[in-house]
């Protein structure tokens, strides 16, 4: 995958943007505004789940405006793990939005908090929590 790999700084930048959006969501508390902010986050994750982290809105911003200003790097990353992490993000934020629509407003800050931890660790340390959950997920499916 080295030939078709993606610049690893792209998903990290995307996670940073996502962390900012999730902080805003948390600051809004619980209510229509917070639900709307979380829905935007879920929408961004949905784009990433379908197109991969490099195809997200943040990914396009990175490749068009940020990356040309950075030093070029030969480092490449397999696009599958970041994409899987986008799916995990979609499941978490999507559940929050669905529960809020069903009347459970408290689900919004909980979902935003969980997603923020994952996005923050990715942006700050390059640690992909969503990717780490892959094996756990497989084990649960295997037992079921």
């Amino acid at each position: 995958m080295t030939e078709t790999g993606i610049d690893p700084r792209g998903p990290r930048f995307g996670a940073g943007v996502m962390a900012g959006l999730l902080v805003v969501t948390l600051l809004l508390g619980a209510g229509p505004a917070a639900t709307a902010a979380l829905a935007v986050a879920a929408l961004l994750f949905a784009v990433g789940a379908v197109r991969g982290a490099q195809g997200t809105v943040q990914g396009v911003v990175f490749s068009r405006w940020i990356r040309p200003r950075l030093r070029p790097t030969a480092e490449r990353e397999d696009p599958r793990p970041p994409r899987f992490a986008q799916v995990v993000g979609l499941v978490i934020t999507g559940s929050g939005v669905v529960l809020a629509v069903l009347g459970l407003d408290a689900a919004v800050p909980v979902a935003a908090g969980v997603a923020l931890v994952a996005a923050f660790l990715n942006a700050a340390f390059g640690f992909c929590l969503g990717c780490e959950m892959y094996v756990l997920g497989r084990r649960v499916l295997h037992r079921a």
Partner: protein
Amino acid sequence: MATLRTPFSSTVDLMTRAALVAALLAVSALAWWALTTRTSRFRPARHDGGDLLTAQQLGSPLGARATLVQLSAATCSICPRVAAVLRSTAAGLPGVAHVELRVEDRMDLVERYGVLRTPTVLLLDADGGLASRMSGPLDRETARAAIHAVTGAAPTDSTAPTAGERLD
């Protein structure tokens, strides 16, 4: 997590929320730090996997002195780098084998050894018994030291790191 309805203005709520967000980020950074420093070295095996692992169960021959069984996944970004480190380390040590397996294909080993994340490296002794294990990023020196602890051989500088090799 319901919003508190206090006589104070909403700025108090906002301050509280901001403090909670800051606390959440601080706790996750600490947890990450604890996790990475704890797992990035070989540790004595607790889940010993029961009996010895045979070459038949592994699906490939065991090393004469030690075997590194690496469990990887397609979604694991550092697995290829860890595999490169282990492959070159094993190549420089006679009787040491490196076997990389995908967790999707080997759920039996994942269950047997209680694997929670990728990459997890199981270090087997000559008989196929689990000597130690680690998960996460790995450098050559850590791998060599763990192998020597199992084989009982004194470290010999059989190979120097190849040019361009990244040591984490």
